[in-house]
């Protein structure tokens, strides 16, 4: 059963974000940072390891305004799990309610191929892709803030802006080979 964006009614002054990550450590820190940061809007964070979500929670689950896929470039598994989870998302979400969060892109040990692959995925789905420094508290704080910025728009809390509008501005572009390895 795929997750649908409009099957439930929105609540007043509320935004719900779903963080999908096949490990749990970063997810937990990020969710805490998000909740701690936002005061004006009632933000709830739901954590999941993968999609589809368990059916038994479907009743109590609010409408999800933004799905964030966390991808750790240092692990191949993280990439595969994300690709698999994407299949269980209703196409309605790809109109501005999905974003990718990538960690470890700055590290020298990560293969360029993985980054290119997730960029290709994000670009083909017209989704934004944010880089994150997951190791530092400041990095987590920044990531939380950026997710909140997108969330507020996609939950309709920013006047005259919609998730689709924002994501056309910030969507990921297809990676070119000259991006990275070639300095020439």
């Amino acid at each position, binding site marked *: 059963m795929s997750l649908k964006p409009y099957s439930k009614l929105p609540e007043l002054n509320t935004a719900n974000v779903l963080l999908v990550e096949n490990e749990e450590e970063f997810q937990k820190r990020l969710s805490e940072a998000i909740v701690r940061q936002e005061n004006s809007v009632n933000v709830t964070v739901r954590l999941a390891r993968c999609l589809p979500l368990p059916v038994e929670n479907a009743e109590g689950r609010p409408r999800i305004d933004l799905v964030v896929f966390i991808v750790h470039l240092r692990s191949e598994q993280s990439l595969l799990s994300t690709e698999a989870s994407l299949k269980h998302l209703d196409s309605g979400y790809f109109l501005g309610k999905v974003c990718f969060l990538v960690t470890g892109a*700055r*590290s020298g040990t990560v293969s360029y191929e993985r980054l290119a692959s997730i960029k290709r995925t994000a670009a083909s789905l017209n989704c934004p892709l944010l880089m994150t*420094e997951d190791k530092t508290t400041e*990095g987590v704080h920044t990531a939380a803030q*950026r997710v909140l910025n997108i969330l507020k728009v996609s939950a309709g809390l920013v006047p005259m802006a919609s998730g689709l509008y*924002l994501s056309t501005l910030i969507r990921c572009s297809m990676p070119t080979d000259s991006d*990275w390895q070639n300095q020439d």
Partner: protein
Amino acid sequence: MPRKSNLSRLDMNSSSENDSSNSGRSDRSLRVAENNRKKSEAEDPFVLALKYFSQVEEGTPWKGNDVVERHMAVVERVALSQGLPPEAISVLLDFAMSLRMGAALCVRVLKILVPASVVPQEAVIKGVSWLCVGKLPMNAQTMFIRWVLTVFDLIDSKDHLRAIYGFIFSFVTEDNLCPYICHLLYLLTRKESIRHYRVRKLLDLQSKMGRQPFLMHLLALYKVFCPELVTLSFPSKMKSGFRNHNSTWKVALSAVQKKNKAEVFSDIQLTVSVKKQPTSKKRKFKGHLMVPAMSSVPRIGTSNNKAFPLEQLRTFSQLLENLHRIELPAQMGSMLGSPLALHYMDCVRDDSAFLRLNFWLGHSLHEEFLFCRDSDSEDMTEAVRFLNTLISTQCFLQEGFSSTEVFLYKFLRVWDGALLRPQILGLLSDIPVVPSSRIKDLLFEPLMQLFFTSSLYFKCSVIECLNSMLLKWLTWHSVYALEDELDISVTSHTPLNMTLSGLMDSVVQLVQFVGRIATVGLQLEGYHPLLLSFTLDFYETVCDMYIKYNLPLVLMPPAGVFYPFLLATDPITVDRLCHIMYRYRTNLISAKDQDQQTEKAFHISRKTYREFNQYVVSIVSCLWNSRVFLAGMGIELSDEVLAQSKVPEYWTTFSLIHHPAFMGYAVDFHQKCWPERKKLDLNSIRTGKRWDWYVEFLFSEGFQGLKEFVESSLNRRASDREAGATAVG
């Protein structure tokens, strides 16, 4: 001058004895002291160890040899705690390279060869000659060359070393040594050492090994000196070239140098600032970003015609005297920290120096920072200090390094928008003009993603950064543009050759980009006054491009930026908008005059005039004529919608009296006019002479922009309070 005496233990003893003799002891006690000294010298384990190593016979077994073990222990201790004096270096290097006690001990000795002060050139020469004997195992060979590279700056003079350039060159054919040999040659190369057959050899190697970065860099240097010999073309931005060589000694060397410097230089005022080096660190696990200390060693005055090492410069006059025989340090990075070295770079315009500095910088930024193996460390102080030094260097030279540029383009793609924000944006504002064909990919796309997802403060700092980038481009243009013709192909060592139209295209792209992101950004942030203010800053630069910077270009802000300014809630924003419009007017008029005087000057499109006039009409009708939202006034709304708002006389709501920004002044003015009146009736200001007084009152409150605008763009019809806008075009 560094005293080399304090580094060797024997000299230290003797000096203390001399001191005591001055204090008035008898001859006898002096003799006793002398004897004691001799005795202690004979017993000093370090001296004994050195004696042993210089005299030990070839073929002495080392396994289970406790004597050699004990001596090694002494030498290791001295080496790692205070460094080895020059004579010890000579002895030990000779011992190691001659393989008198086998290869294992050779490597072990090389590992601890940490000089306290100077490395005698002759010792290195001797080492090279042992290398030529060809008995050394490969790992010892590479280790020796790596050691020479590490201590290169400490070698007391390099003339003899240059004399055996050919011998050293012959090792390039050794596959394992080649990268290090190329590096060493890179450091040693003079114009006279470049020969046709050497170039041919390197080209041969290149065809065999592929385009290896170390070969490329050496060849590039050859080309700088002798362009006629090397016909190869190099990409303007090369991969970072030489392998890391100093990992074995880095920690020990910096510790010893730091310690010794503290002793030696405590009383000398340094103009060459010596960077404080962090203590021990494992390179593998942590990015190393520091400006290497400019190593200061050899004695001045040993000979007059010798090259003058840059690190010895202390004063500006010294620089002037020795300008013709300055020798660059091996670690080019050390130049970043030294203002004198930068002066030298700037006035000599030495291509090889720039090439080497660029190479070093690219390597440090790329390997040690962008691709740092382990980015866990919260401690960014090293990186902050490094980047700040880089920023101030670029500021000093008034141009960015191409390697910084390459680094930034890559970094923007993996940036989270917070890491080292001030430094990164500071560097970004320094980049030279980006060709308009690539500006979107390199700059706009990554910036846009960061801009729209990040906080208000980030948005402001991006606009600020782009503003100062634009300012630098414009300044660059106004400095380099030749006055008689508008061709500005610059022949400095900036690799960029840019035509006027190329520059204009880039500027147009940049201004339009800021217009776009500011429009949407303002909308997302609910027209925050802070963001409005930074956007105004940007347009204050844009409106004066023609008069101030002589760039024949006038670009109007988009409506999405203009109207938020006009309808802003604070009077400063409206005032600054008026000032900007006044400057646009001045620019347009002067461009028009120019247009009429000289035929070949640039042509401003009708569209620009039309836009400008439209905006002026909008301001006038909104502030003076109370005709906002009416047909033909810029923002139009249908009557039904406006009626629904139930605002009476909605067309007056943004007049100078009712405009939310000025209403406070209007109330104030009302109070002053009719102090006794209880009921507030702002509309009474509109009648008679009061309106003029009110406007005067606003001018007196400091709204200079408003005054400029009124005086230039408004033709007052005396009959009524209607005003007409003075059109340009």
